[in-house]
């Protein structure tokens, strides 16, 4: 192949990427319109919250505790060299609430729930269930997609907060009970360093945005899956990859924007 052909191929990929972004935006507008259209699908949404939120609880809980314990151990080993182990609460608390809580819970939910959502929607495409809904003049975006997206947006901040709280407990467990840091010092340095408006609110905003992004990517990939079994696999894989990478990249910009 000539050099010109390579350039042309690159250009073609670029155009395909921008096309994809445009289709995603159009899809997002469709979902937003569906959410605003009555009747609200409350029961469907509650079922989806069960799949996204309740079934992720154990994963989020165990991971949060483990991450908090590792932070406690690592933080202690570093801080004790400077005789500053009293600041352990600050290290654990700030890392959890500003970055690790929202980001890690988004990644875990991507693996636990978004992949399942994409596979479910994609197999509905393959087995023509969505076409069946259309036959009964039920909009599949309104009935299937919108409640799923809403469930992710609602569940993500809750899961992220739980992750953070359990992480703080994990840090306390290792720092105070195993390594002998003063308990009051740990608690007061957590309380002293975390502020509602500077830390807690940006953390919730972050996880709301991550929830929306992850849900949109999963729904979009599933909805536009190729109608065969390899298409289901491709939709699931690309959901996990794209959602994880997007979460990490968007996290940088959110952190820079909100200054936390």
């Amino acid at each position, binding site marked *: 192949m000539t050099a010109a052909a390579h350039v042309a191929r690159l250009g073609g990929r670029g155009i395909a990427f921008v096309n994809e972004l445009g289709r995603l935006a159009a899809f997002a507008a469709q979902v937003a319109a569906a959410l605003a259209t009555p009747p609200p699908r409350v029961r469907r949404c509650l079922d989806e919250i*069960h799949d996204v*939120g309740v079934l992720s609880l154990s994963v989020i809980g165990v991971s949060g505790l483990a991450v908090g314990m590792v932070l406690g151990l690592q933080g202690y080993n570093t801080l004790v060299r400077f005789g*500053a182990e009293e600041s352990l609460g600050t290290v654990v608390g700030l890392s959890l609430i500003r970055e690790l809580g929202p980001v890690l819970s988004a990644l875990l939910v991507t693996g636990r729930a978004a992949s399942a959502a994409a596979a479910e929607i994609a197999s509905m495409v393959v087995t023509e269930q969505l076409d069946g809904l259309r036959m009964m003049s039920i909009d599949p975006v309104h009935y299937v997609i919108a409640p799923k997206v809403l469930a992710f947006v609602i569940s993500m*901040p809750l899961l992220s907060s739980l992750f*953070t709280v359990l992480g*703080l407990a994990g840090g306390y467990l290792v720092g105070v009970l195993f390594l002998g840091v003063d308990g009051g010092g740990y608690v007061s340095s957590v309380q002293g360093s975390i502020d*509602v408006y500077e830390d*807690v609110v940006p953390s*919730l905003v972050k996880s709301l945005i991550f929830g929306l992004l992850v849900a949109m990517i999963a729904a979009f990939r599933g909805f536009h899956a190729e109608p065969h079994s390899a298409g289901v696999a491709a939709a699931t894989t690309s959901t996990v990859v794209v959602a994880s990478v997007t979460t990490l990249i968007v996290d940088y910009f959110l952190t820079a924007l909100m200054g936390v």
Partner: protein
Amino acid sequence: MVEPRARDLWVGLFLLIGCGAIAFLSVSVGGSTYRGPRGLELFVTFDQVGGLKPRAPVVIGGVKVGQVKSIGLDEELRARVGIDVDGNLRLSTDTSASILTAGVLGDQYIELTPGGEEATLGPGDEIEFKQDAFVLERLIGRLVQSLGNEDGKGKEEEE
């Protein structure tokens, strides 16, 4: 499959626990650090507050009695610190305030040392006796400077 009823219960529990976690983070962790009685607002004017931050504790003999509320500059460009302490305290007018550091690199806090006067401080009063923050860099700077001077003297004497 979970029964629909049981599923609703779980969803409800999940929403409750999640909101509880948010509330815990916002109120208990993110809220103000001092939750004892307050109500007596006093002011101290320092030349140097060092690394003192709002919400830093105010103690008497190591017991927490309040927290730093505001740090700003007055008209003479000196640091004016507002503190909020327990309204039931009867602090004499010659109470002194000093900015101390917990540990070598620790956080800074204000310690009040009550005096012996009969009259007590009221809301909005100014604490007149105070001791500025101890700034490690300045001390090191002064030490290096004085060592440098001694070296210079030594050389001159040799010559």
